[in-house]
């Protein structure tokens, strides 16, 4: 079968101990039977490993941080697009999604397709809005509040019992067993990700996740539940296994239908010993473990590209249960010339 040549630009090339989803998304797209992709990496840092993985990434361009604003980003994307003629752009970081969502129409005029959540979907699933989300969609969520002032930690015991989970608005979460620990984590996380800090009720149970893709019309294109088997000190899955869990899939279908979710998503859930599922987070993009879904029979990155290009995508009806991913680290040997090229010229 003749494969269609397309150019896909992606971020999230930081394939480190807390990896971005870029490389696994690329692997899915590269395994497509439909596309022959040219992959353009969008890197924020000179040492993002993906930039040096030439078997996966054809060319990498440095891009400005989202905090530099929409104009700087668009100007850079316009420059890259003039050279590369990008068909689809997949932002893979939570922190850049808002900027890309805001720029979706401009990108469209440049011939670049995206498939992102709407502003409403993006906003209402924010960690700080989770209690409202749970109430609106009748989903069990842990009680949580958003703090903007460190002094509010003093009053936490009015609403919570320790331990509590201290979370950043985009990333990071720590369990605090005392006020002193809560203060430490508040400072540590807010210095990195800003305010607010979310204080969440600690739910005891097993951490399970679902990677899913919604078509924006209430249909679930694919969904694969996973249990983390090995968790790093950063709370990231180093190994996980696909599950046959109807409750998790029913919850995913319900959330996608009720919110009319558009794009990739990851549901982070806690399963209690009574088999209740608590939603602790919705990440509005495909997660770094998405390649497990590809390995289990659902190539969600390929489906995402198809949706972005306006193609009809038939929902996946099954996946293989008991598939395991095991992450590993690997030292690449690179020439300093390459590092220099990316550092000085912003391309590699």
């Amino acid at each position, binding site marked *: 079968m003749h494969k269609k040549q397309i150019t896909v630009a992606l971020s999230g090339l930081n394939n480190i101990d807390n990896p971005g989803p870029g490389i696994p998304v690329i692997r899915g797209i590269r395994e497509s039977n439909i596309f022959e992709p040219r992959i353009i990496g969008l890197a924020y840092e000179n040492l993002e490993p993906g930039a040096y993985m030439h078997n996966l990434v054809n060319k990498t361009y440095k891009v400005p941080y989202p905090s530099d604003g929409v104009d700087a980003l668009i100007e850079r994307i316009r420059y890259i697009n003039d050279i590369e003629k990008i068909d689809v752009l997949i932002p893979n970081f939570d922190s850049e999604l808002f900027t890309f969502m805001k720029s979706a129409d401009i990108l469209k005029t440049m011939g670049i397709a995206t498939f992102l959540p709407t502003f409403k979907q993006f906003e209402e699933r924010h960690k700080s809005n989770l209690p409202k989300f749970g109430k609106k969609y009748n989903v069990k969520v842990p009680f949580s509040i958003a703090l903007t002032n460190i002094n509010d930690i003093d009053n936490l015991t009015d609403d919570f019992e320790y331990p509590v989970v201290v979370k950043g608005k985009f990333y990071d979460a720590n369990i605090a067993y005392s006020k002193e620990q809560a203060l430490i984590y508040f400072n540590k996380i807010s210095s990195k990700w800003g305010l607010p800090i979310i204080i969440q009720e600690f739910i005891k149970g097993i951490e399970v996740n679902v990677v899913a893709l919604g078509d924006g019309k209430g249909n679930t294109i694919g969904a694969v539940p*996973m*249990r983390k*088997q090995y968790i790093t000190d950063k709370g990231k899955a180093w190994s996980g296994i696909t*599950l046959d869990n109807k409750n998790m899939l029913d919850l995913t279908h319900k959330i996608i239908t009720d919110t009319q979710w558009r794009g990739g998503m990851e549901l982070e859930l806690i*399963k209690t010993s009574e088999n209740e599922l608590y939603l602790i987070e919705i990440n509005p993009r495909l997660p770094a473990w998405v390649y497990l879904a590809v390995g289990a029979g659902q190539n969600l990155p390929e489906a995402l590209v198809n949706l972005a290009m306006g193609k009809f995508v038939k929902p996946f009806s099954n996946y293989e*249960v*008991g598939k395991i991913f095991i992450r590993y680290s690997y030292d690449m040997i690179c020439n300093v010339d390459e590092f220099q090229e990316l550092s000085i010229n912003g391309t590699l």
Partner: protein
Amino acid sequence: MKNIIKLKTNIAISEKGFVFDPTTGDSYTVNAIGLEILEMIKQRKVFVKISDMITAKYDVEPSSFEQYFFDFIAVLKQMQLIENNDA
């Protein structure tokens, strides 16, 4: 003791004694005799039948086997490998 103990239907048991619960992702290993007993439970054999077969094959008193058997069932229950309303 005439009740049939029902293993959850989707539990996978390999011939080498690897037990996998696809609902939770938990996996366990059982020794050869544990595997024999699990297979008999899977075949819906009642306790008396299982006891007869095991005590005939191995050097164990029926009263001792009964105790070991129900300890084993308690562990399976704790691991949520058998249906709730049984045993």
